[in-house]
Each structure stands twice: as structure tokens, then as C-alpha cells.
């Protein structure tokens, strides 16, 4: 059997193993041959409240006695800083404290790169950095929207966020935006699951839009685009009104470009709907709680204390677990190329008894993350904080587990090797709200640490990333990382908003 036939057969068998039908599996196998470029996907994974750096910092440790980094962190963005980049290709996942919040990612260490020393150059001060962390300046498009537009790809935005009287919190809750403004994440896992996998049965859903509907939708969108354009012309000179209508136009154009919504494209169907953890529970809860006028978000209620519930705020952890699996399967099955998960909002204050059972009522933000580093590497309070943040890394590990299998579209590689997962937070140290590489001198010198942003990049990016590296920069602007990840996804952009200075080549092949 020649190599092409072997490849085709291998793809065919793997596709069958995923539950795909014979015709679809055959199609995939032919596509694998026809493909000249590896597929690329991106998952952006936000977790709030930063990190206790002593529980993630690896060798060579960032500490003042380490000559390598003696002058690092002294002058973010200024001329006095060192601006050197240090790379370790074969780092060890150990910390000075002995507790490592990255431990769940140990099985994927060869796919895990860590960037230390990023800097948020914008004017936002604390948790409101959430609006800058993927945009650079809260004005530019966020990385997921930028990449999705460049790839003409379908994007999926999942979240576990509350709202202010059912309105999006524009201070602490916004993460993603495009030319049409801030995006609102979808809390409802049942809705997303049904959209992605509702057709995935032997008998396709008769309500699935047909090819004709897609064309009719585009025609209708064209009509609306024309009307909005005319209205914008009619208000020429009223700048604010023109801008509103421009944003509306951008929204319509984006929707038209991604017409058809999420879910399998015609002719490409994953015929085995995956089991997503807790989905059945959510489906039952949704039927009980949801009101159709949209004034009650049943999953918002699940993030809050509810009367008479013994296990308050359970659903946050369940939501996060469900959404991680949903994201990974959506990517694996080719139903979304860019996925963003926004776990909570900045300054989210609900208890996490499911993670810290010995502190059932302590709030995540105020009581747990706001624990200052006092020089004690074994501080129980800081370890508690690290434990909660490690829990999110367990979700990332679960995504890696799902993706760590032959890519149906490129079975020579795993889906993880063809994906970029970027896990991040809006601040560095949760107590100090650091937004740069910053020295935190507390206690005796051996116990001194640096505070810095968590930036974990997992996956191969379809061959563009050089994974498995510990990269230390001296206050490179975060937009540089965003630019680099965009490049990994195939973008030819040379800048990312007004604050980037260039790529971080050490992350790339």
C-alpha cells in the first residue's frame, strides 16, 4: 500500500473512530490528502484575578539573587530596562514553594510555553485591565475577533458572567470586541451545544438551515446593509450617529461573512454528538428557570446565591467544566475555529466551596485572591489562592486531553498540535494588581519574588509555534504577544493596535 493510500486509510479509520459516518469519513480522508496547509484553531481561556507568582515561577527563578534577571522589571516601558529575552527550551515544572498551579498541564509540557515579563502599557489600573488584555487598548479588536475575521472563521464566545440588571458590565465584564463593539459571551451551554451538535444524529434536524436559506439570509442581509448605509448617509455630519451606524454595518458584514452560524458546514457533519459533562443537569435547570423575555438569565442565577439552595453557586464550577469540554469538542469537530472562554468577570466575588471546601463562604476575589505575598513561600492563604487558579488549569488540561488525538483534518498531527490555546488573566499578582514584571520584595532575600502576568501558550498552532519553552522578557507590551499569536494563526499583520512593538520570535518556529 503506497503512502497516500496509507494516509487515506488512516484518516478514514480515525474518522470512523470519532463516530463519523462512512461517507463523511471518506470525505475527510480525501480532504486530508488534498490539504496543503495544516488546519489552525485558537482557544482563548480567561481566568480572573491573576496568580500568586511564587506558585508558578519556574527555574531559572525570577529573584534578585539570580544574575540573569538582576536588572529586569526596573522600568516598564522605559529606556532604563534591560529588554533582553531569555529562553529555556527544556524547563522543569518545579517551583520554589513546591506547589505548582501548572501541575495539571504536566502531561502536555512539551506543548506548553510560558512567557514571563509581559507589561500592560495602557492606562487601566486594576481589574478593569480585562478590557485591555486581549485588545491592547480596549479600542482595537480582541485577538479572537481579529483572528476570526482574518481567517473568515467561525468564532464562539462562551462565558460565565453576570450582568448588571441583565446588562453587560462594561467595566469588569468585557473581554472581547470587534468593530461593532463589545461582545457578550454566551452563558447558555445548552443553547450552544444544541447549535453545534443538535444536528449530529443519524436523522438530521429538519430545521437545520438549508443551502437555500443561507443564500436567502445573505440577500436579506444585503438589503439591510443597504438600508443602514443609506441611513448613515442621511446623518452625515452627526458624528456620533454615523459611528453608531458604522458599527451596525460592521456587525452586519461580520454576520454575513460567517453566515450560517455555528455548527457544521453543509456536507461536513460530525455524526457523534459528544457527551459534555453536566449538560443534562443544565438542560433540566434551563427548563425550570428560563423566562423567555430574557430578563432572567438562568445561568446568572446559578452564579449567585439563591434562596434555599444548600449548595450555593454550584453552577459556576459546573459551567466552567462544561464550557471547557464544549470548546474543545467544537474545535475538534471543526465546528468553530476560534473559541474564547471567559470564566467569570474581573472582581467576581462569589465563594468557591467546590474548590476550597474548608472556606465555603470566602469570596473568590476579596477573600481568596487578595492575599498579599509576605515572604512566606508556604503561606496557607496564598496556597489556597493558587489552588483555585490551579483548578482553571485543570480545565485547560481537560481541553488538552480532548484535543490530544489525531486531528480529523490532519491525522498526521494531533488536534492539539494544530491549536493555539492561550490561558491568561487580567492582572499579575492578585493582591498587588501588577500589570508589569515587578519586584515584590517581602521577607528575606531568598523569598523575594517577581510579580508578572500569567501567559500560558499550549499547542503547536498548526506548526507555527515552537512549544515547550520558558521565555522571559523584560516588560514587553502584551500587544506583542497578541501579534505573535495572530501570526501563529496565519496573520500577516505587522502591528496589533497602537501599542505593539513587534513579534516575540522566540515563540515561533
Amino acid at each position, binding site marked *: 500500500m503506497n503512502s497516500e493510500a496509507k494516509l487515506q486509510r488512516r484518516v478514514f479509520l480515525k474518522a470512523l473512530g470519532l463516530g463519523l459516518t462512512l461517507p463523511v469519513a471518506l470525505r475527510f480522508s480525501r480532504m486530508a490528502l488534498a490539504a496543503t496547509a495544516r488546519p489552525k484553531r485558537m482557544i482563548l481561556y480567561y481566568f480572573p484575578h491573576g496568580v500568586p507568582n511564587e506558585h508558578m515561577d519556574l527555574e531559572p527563578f525570577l529573584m534578585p539573587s539570580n544574575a540573569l534577571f538582576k536588572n529586569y522589571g526596573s522600568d516598564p516601558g522605559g529606556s532604563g530596562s534591560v529588554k533582553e529575552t531569555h529562553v529555556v527550551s527544556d524547563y522543569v515544572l518545579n517551583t520554589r514553594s513546591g506547589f505548582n498551579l501548572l501541575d495539571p498541564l504536566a502531561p502536555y509540557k512539551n506543548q506548553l510555553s510560558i512567557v514571563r515579563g509581559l507589561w500592560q502599557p495602557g492606562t*487601566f*489600573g486594576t481589574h*478593569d485591565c480585562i*478590557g*485591555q488584555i486581549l485588545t491592547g*487598548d*480596549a*479600542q482595537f479588536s480582541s485577538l479572537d475577533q481579529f483572528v476570526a475575521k482574518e481567517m473568515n472563521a467561525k468564532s464562539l464566545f462562551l462565558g460565565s458572567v453576570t450582568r*448588571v*440588571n*441583565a*446588562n*453587560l*458590565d*462594561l*467595566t*469588569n465584564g468585557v473581554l472581547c*470586541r470587534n468593530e*461593532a*463593539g*463589545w*461582545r*457578550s459571551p454566551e452563558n447558555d451551554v445548552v443553547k450552544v451545544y444544541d447549535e453545534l451538535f443538535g444536528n449530529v444524529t443519524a436523522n438530521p434536524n429538519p430545521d437545520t438551515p438549508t443551502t*437555500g436559506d443561507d443564500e436567502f439570509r445573505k440577500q*436579506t442581509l444585503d*438589503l439591510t446593509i443597504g*438600508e443602514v448605509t443609506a*441611513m448613515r448617509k442621511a*446623518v452625515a455630519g*452627526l458624528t*456620533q*450617529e454615523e459611528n*453608531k*451606524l458604522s*458599527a*451596525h454595518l*460592521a*456587525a*452586519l458584514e*461580520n*454576520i454575513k461573512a460567517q453566515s450560517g452560524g455555528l455548527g457544521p458546514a453543509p456536507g461536513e457533519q460530525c455524526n457523534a454528538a459528544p457527551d459534555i459533562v453536566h449538560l443534562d443537569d443544565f438542560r433540566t435547570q434551563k427548563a425550570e428557570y428560563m423566562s*423567555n423575555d*430574557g430578563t432572567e438569565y438562568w445561568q446568572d442565577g446559578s452564579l*449567585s*446565591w*439563591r*434562596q*434555599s439552595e444548600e449548595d450555593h453557586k454550584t453552577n459556576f464550577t459546573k459551567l466552567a467544566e462544561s464550557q471547557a469540554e464544549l470548546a474543545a469538542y467544537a474545535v475538534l469537530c471543526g465546528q468553530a475555529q476560534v473559541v474564547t472562554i471567559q470564566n467569570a468577570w474581573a*472582581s467576581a*466575588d462569589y465563594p468557591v466551596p467546590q474548590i476550597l471546601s474548608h472556606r465555603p463562604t*470566602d*469570596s473568590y*476575589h*476579596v*477573600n481568596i485572591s*487578595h*492575599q*498579599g505575598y509576605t515572604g512566606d513561600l508556604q503561606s496557607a492563604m496564598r496556597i489556597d489562592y493558587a489552588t483555585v487558579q490551579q483548578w482553571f488549569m485543570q480545565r485547560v488540561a481537560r481541553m488538552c486531553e480532548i484535543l490530544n488525538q489525531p486531528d480529523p483534518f490532519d491525522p498526521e498531527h494531533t488536534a492539539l498540535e494544530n491549536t493555539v490555546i492561550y490561558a491568561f488573566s487580567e492582572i499579575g499578582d492578585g493582591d*498587588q*494588581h501588577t500589570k508589569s514584571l515587578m519586584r515584590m520584595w517581602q521577607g528575606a532575600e531568598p523569598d523575594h519574588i517577581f510579580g508578572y502576568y500569567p501567559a500560558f501558550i499550549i499547542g503547536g498552532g498548526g506548526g507555527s509555534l515552537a512549544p515547550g519553552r520558558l521565555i522571559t522578557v523584560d516588560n514587553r507590551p502584551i500587544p506583542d504577544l497578541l501579534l505573535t499569536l495572530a501570526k501563529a494563526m496565519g496573520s500577516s499583520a505587522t502591528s496589533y493596535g497602537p501599542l505593539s512593538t513587534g513579534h516575540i520570535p522566540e515563540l515561533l518556529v
Partner: protein
Amino acid sequence: MKALRSFLLGDAHLARNALPCALLALLLSLSACGPPQSEDPDDPGDGSGGSATSGGDGDTGSGGSMVPQDPNSCAESTPGTRLVRRLTRRELTNTQQDIFGDAASSAPTALPGDAVDRIRLSNDSSILQMTQDTTQAVLDRAEEIATAVTAPESLNSSLPCASSSPDATCASEFIKKYGEALFRRTLDQADLDRYLALYDSVSGASDFNTGLKWTLVGLIQSPHAVYRTELGQGGALTPYEIASELSYDYSASPPSADLIAKALSGELDDPETRYEEAKKLLATERGGEVVHQFFEEWLNYRDILTVSRAKTPDNFEAVRPKMALETRRFLETLLFEKEGNISDLLTANYTIADQELASYYGFSGGSADITQDGGSEVERTYGLGLFAQGSVTGTMSSITITSPTRRGLLLLRRLFCEVPGLPEAINFDLTVSELEGNTTRERLEASHLSTSCAKCHERFDPLGFGFEHFDHVGRYREEEVTDNGSFPINASATVALLDDLAIDGQEQLMTGLSTSSAVLSCVSGTLSNYVYGGQADCRDKDARVRIMSGETSIVDYLAELAREPHFVERK
């Protein structure tokens, strides 16, 4: 260290109490103060709201002022600028409900919430946009509604020609019927031609019903449906615009045929007629909901349903929903039954409660279960007005202790229209071990008012001290019970914002606030901005002068805004 940790973890945890003054740089540049603390996201009225809030545009977090212009400084009422106002979510939903009935109410897609401005109020036309999510949701709902409306059995009953002569003439009839309802005006020939062209194209590739379905999708998501214009012609709003403005401003609903007819006949050119129509609309159920929505956003009092609280009475969980109902009923009574004014809002000495709720507060009386439409007027033995409501004092607290800072900030934002911002840098030199005091107030005074933090905190912490007799779950107390013992409450303060008025307790504070011209101007201006859909100066001089002098009730004031020239003119 142990005491420090206990302090941090326990009742005296300041993180939810004392925002670092560096977070509250009110027009000043402060370097640092206070131990590392945090803005509280559960408090929609706190300093964290001073940063980026504009829909789509990131502010720098510098805070600032939202103080409306004093109407007495205006020579006369003058019209504002021309606007294209996106319908709010409530307006869109009501419109679709009125036109499509069951087809709309059964559409599964919910519209996203509206953006809120820097003081967390929606209905601001400058930030209410058709974002991608809203546009997608409108499209999704449009398809759902259109599918239901054009299903053969529905269509044949609502459009007789669909079964007898399904052709372009019938399609025109369909387009006119729904187009005029959705656009809230007659369609011109260009509109008709545009939609007939879409119908022709789609039906030609499918069938009559499908052609109508996608035509209806276009009508529902059209900018002529999702926006209401206040553009006018030659400086005067058109009759259709005035009819829509009245109906949406005062009932979040599309204009009735009767109201459109009055507009077309010129009756609505008369300010008194507009005032009367506005009053009628406010008296409807939907009109009431418009008013309630304002107060829900203004105070976020419904957060009492979900905030985290510990060390509470056994029946607190049962009482929470009653508190939310109590506030709603109180507002209904004060605004609509008693026709209260701003002073009444701040100093009313009654509330609405059932027996359990009254007993919870320590009041006498109360009727049957308020959750079952019960509840009656109950005299307060402590606390005055809206800000004494359990839903407000209980929300503006920490998990186990009160928060004078949060309460003070609430008053600063809502009654003085000042919006503290976030600093650019935070210095955590000051450690918690330097804090002294037995009570929450004493610790705040030690950390906020005896350091450089005072520059900001002396502006609003005293407002919060006046509330110290209200515990963290809305009940009265004479003492603060701590791990170190019980200590008498000190609710006295000197309020700089009231010309250094000395007060002792919430009652004296609210009485002083109710006569403050700054407060009257802020509240009346905020209401005006809410009705008119954004900030601007001097649109409302006549109406605001009257409400500030106590001549009109709040509901009357809202209706009087329809009398102003701005309602029918634009510059």
C-alpha cells in the same frame, strides 16, 4: 500576623469595606493610601464604575462628573441635538410582542441586555448600539418570528389572499401591513419596491411563503424598525417621530394608531396635549415598568436577591425576596398613589411590608404575605425614604459587616452625580497592621481619614457613617457586635457636601440631603437624561425648575418633560 489574618478574613475584612483611596481619585492624582483593597463588583454604584463604560470606547478610568447643568443657569429650555436612537431591549421586545403576539413570545432567542453608561444606567442613546451580538440576536429572532408568521396555517388566517392569490400583489399587502407596523410610519414607494424585489428574488428560487418569510426578516431587522429617529426636518420632528418618542419614552411601546393620528393631525404640537398623553402612558402597566426599570438600575436594589451575606438572621433567605418586593411596592405607592416628589422619595417615613418583613425590621403592623400580593403601609420607627430600604442598605454592605464607604459612594453617585475614577498606580505601602479601632467605622477612620486617603474619602465616607445604625442586612442596631465585644454605634458625621452640616443618623442625613439644591439638580437631571436618552444641557429648564422647587411630583415631572421644546424640535 494571626490577628492580621483574622482581621482580613473575619468581620473586619476591609477589602469589601474600604476601597483604597487610590481607587477613588476624585479628580485628583493620588499616589497611594490604604492597604490593598478592591473595588467591589457586587456594588454597581462604587468607584469601579468610573472607568471604561462607554459602549465600544474605552475610557481611561479617570472618573469625573455626571452632574447635570443647573437649570437656573439656563436662559430658557433649548432643544438638543438630532439623534438616531436604537430601541432598547424592552422596547424591541414590546414592539415585536404587539405586532406578532404569540409568534414573538414563543421565539426562543432572547435579546442581549443593553449597555449601561458610567453611572450604570441604560437608555443612553450614545452607547446603545447594534453590536454584533445584538444584531445576531435580532436576526435570529426575526427568523424565528417570520417562520411562525409565514407558516401556512398562520399565514392563511392572517392574510386571506395567501390562499386565494399568492402573488406579488398579496406580497405587497403583507409588506405594507407589517412594514408600517414595524417602521411606525407609512411606507413610501422606495420601501415597497425594495422589499418586493427581495420577495421576488427569494420566492422565485423557492415559493410564496418562503419569499414572505425572508421579506419579513428584512423588515424586522431593518434599521427603520430597530432605531427610532429624532432627526426631524428643518428643525422640527416629524409627526411620526413625535408619536414614537412619546410612546417609547413613556411606555417602551410602539405608538398606537390613535397616537399616530393625533400626531398627524397636529394635536401633539400642543405641549399640554403631549403632557396629557405622557401621563396616560405612564399610568399604563408598561409605563409603570419604564419607571421601575429606572429605579432598579439607579439603585440595583434587586441585587439583594443574590448578594453574598453571612452572619444573618435565620429567616434572612426568606426575607430577601420580600425586601425586593418591598422597594418596588414602596415606589409604586410613593410615585403613583401618593404622587410624591424628590423630597418625599428621600424622607418618606413609611414602607410597605407584610408581618414577617415588618417584624424583621422591628416595625409594628404589616399585612398578609407580600409575595402573594399582600403587604401594607407600615410606619418606620427608624430610617427615612428610599435609601433606608432593606434592599438598599443590605446590598450596600459587605458579607458580614457594613460598608460606610460603599453606602457613601452610592449617595455620592446617585444624589450628587459624582463618579469617582480609578487611579493609574497603586502603592501598597500602608499595611493593615496600622489600622486601629474596635468598630468598622473606627477602622475606616484610621485607614481613610487620618492619612492621605482623606482627600477622597472625607467626601463620601461621612455620608456612609450616617447609616451605621443599619446593619449589613438592613436591620437597626445600637451596637456593633465584634469578636472583641460590643461597641456603641456612632452615626454622627460632618457632611462636607452639605456645607459641613453636622448630622447624627440617617434621618438627619436624608433630611439635609432632601433640601440640597445639588441633590435636587442631580436627581432631576438624571431622570431627564433617562427620558431623553442621554446627557445634554438646558433641554428641560422649565420642568426641572418646578420639580426642584417641589411644585411637581416625580411622575408629573416625567410627563412635563414632554412639554419642553426639545420634545418636538432639534437644533
